């Protein structure tokens, strides 16, 4: 009986392995650069959304300012590379550490706030970060930073035309976030977070330290998001505040997790697999006219999924016990 959790986790690990293998092979036969790019961005966002999910999904603290950690990560690794020559494979971890530290620094005052007050504070902190980077000459201000091509290198994550190496890199990142979420879900932290999300008063009566739980979730979530930012910078080769720190980016990070299913292992991946291609495809086929049809479709899709599947798209895949997913 009690082994239901253990059994489910074992199943999930197996499914995780199969999905990972499938995703690793997916772009190999594809020669079309546009599709390869689409897959890479989707996998990257699956990882970012999983990172957001740690704080927003499991711990229930709705952050609408994750662009800040993404931006910090992308700037840290880029500047370390350009100014000090530190290869992005190392810079990636520096990015994670700095972004995680930033999340702690921001969490310390913001976790006194709850509910909508917290969500809005995260919007504001994100906006402050955006404006400061925009006006900070050392980091290139509004012009941003261009990463020149210095030659094919795995250590520096530079590949002239090949997309596949980037695919494996972002897939490793997404797999790492998934594994972290998997491990955390079964750990003391994961239980504490879900308890905090469901009922703060009951959680602390059971000895759960609310503030420490939120801070731990924030640090991990921000750290992983920062690593994703570092990879993104290296992939696109150019960053500026508008492309990595703007407020709408925070929404882009959160949305796959929310629509896929918050606080679930598979929600972020499913959400990214639906949302990112939907938005990219509608942008390329309909956005070119500048008539906003892509935005209408995208916005409509968000409204529709949120209302029709409040538990997220993951609830469509009811291969787990029925009782697990409450009817809406």
């Amino acid at each position, binding site marked *: 009986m009690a082994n239901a959790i253990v059994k489910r986790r074992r199943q999930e690990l197996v499914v995780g392995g199969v999905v990972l293998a499938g995703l690793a092979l997916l772009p190999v036969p594809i020669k079309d650069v546009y599709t390869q790019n689409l897959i890479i961005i989707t996998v990257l966002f699956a990882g970012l959304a999983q990172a957001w999910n740690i704080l927003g999904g499991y711990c229930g603290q709705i952050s609408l300012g994750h662009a800040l950690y993404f931006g910090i990560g992308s700037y840290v690794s880029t500047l370390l590379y350009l100014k000090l020559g530190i290869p992005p494979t190392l810079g990636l971890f520096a990015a994670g550490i700095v972004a995680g530290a930033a999340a702690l620094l921001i969490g310390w005052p913001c976790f006194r706030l709850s509910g909508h007050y917290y969500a809005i504070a995260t919007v504001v902190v994100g906006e402050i970060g955006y404006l400061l980077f925009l006006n900070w000459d050392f980091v290139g201000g509004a012009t941003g930073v261009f990463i020149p091509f210095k030659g094919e290198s795995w250590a520096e994550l530079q590949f002239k035309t090949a997309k596949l190496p980037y695919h494996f890199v972002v897939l490793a990142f997404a797999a790492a976030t998934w594994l972290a979420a998997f491990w955390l879900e079964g750990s003391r932290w994961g239980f504490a977070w879900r308890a905090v999300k469901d009922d703060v008063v009951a959680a602390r009566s*059971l000895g759960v330290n609310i503030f420490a739980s939120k801070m731990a979730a924030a640090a991990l979530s921000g750290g992983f998001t920062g690593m994703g930012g570092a990879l993104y910078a290296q992939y696109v080769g150019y960053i500026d505040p508008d492309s990595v720190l703007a407020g709408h980016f925070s929404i882009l990070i959160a949305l796959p997790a929310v629509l896929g299913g918050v606080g679930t292992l598979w929600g972020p991946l499913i959400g990214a697999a639906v949302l990112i291609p939907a938005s990219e495809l509608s942008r390329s086929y309909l956005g070119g006219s500048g008539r906003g049809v892509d935005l209408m479709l995208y916005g409509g899709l968000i409204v529709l999924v949120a209302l029709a599947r409040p538990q997220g798209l993951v609830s469509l895949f009811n291969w787990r016990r029925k009782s697990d997913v409450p009817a809406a």
Partner: protein
Amino acid sequence: MSPLLEIRSVSKRFGGVAANIDISFDVRRGEILGLIGPNGAGKTSLFNAIAGEVTPDSGEIMLNGQRLSGLGPVACAALGVARTFQVVRSFDTMTVLENVMVGAFLRHRAPAAAMRAATDIIGFCGLNGRIDRPAWGLSPPEKRRLEVARALATEPQLLLLDEMLTGLTPTEAQSGVQLIRDVAARGVTIIMVEHVMEIVLPLVERAVVLNLGQILTIGTSAEIVRNPAVIRAYLGDRYAA
């Protein structure tokens, strides 16, 4: 033997209202103590003070001679005080096992150990058939049992039960009473708040009666029912209502 819990001159005001005025009493190891009184007597406020949710304005609360008051609920839980809530607070998106594991993690760091401990307690509380159900789907009496199980999982020395039997049918209340006796038999000291005297008095050895924030009397069940001041407080309350 020294008392488990000592309450020394505890007073608490909320705004202009005095919820507790100079409350002092001891709780003996292993006993079931009733905390009764009409609505607004200050029971819940005192309860919250013992559980660390509320810091008294003055006075002290000691568990095993160690000061509890002012430490906050997390430290109180770690020191061995557990509680249930008047309005049930279950973790609705988690299963029964997961709910109880949250409590078990306080003493067991390893998930496997926490799961074993939680499973035992769920069996003890008679929720075996519900172990993998999400908490939101439980019936009200099952949710109350879940709260007791979750609290017990923190391996407390003192368990605070807030109106655990109120609102249950006579049959449900009867099995609730049996659960409380079983918990006491494990050596856990219990304080139970109840609004309705008839439910508590048969179960407890002693009871503290509060009225208007002050102690009206402390005594055995037999003494309490014969005390004219208690009868007046309750009848007055009933007429006023």
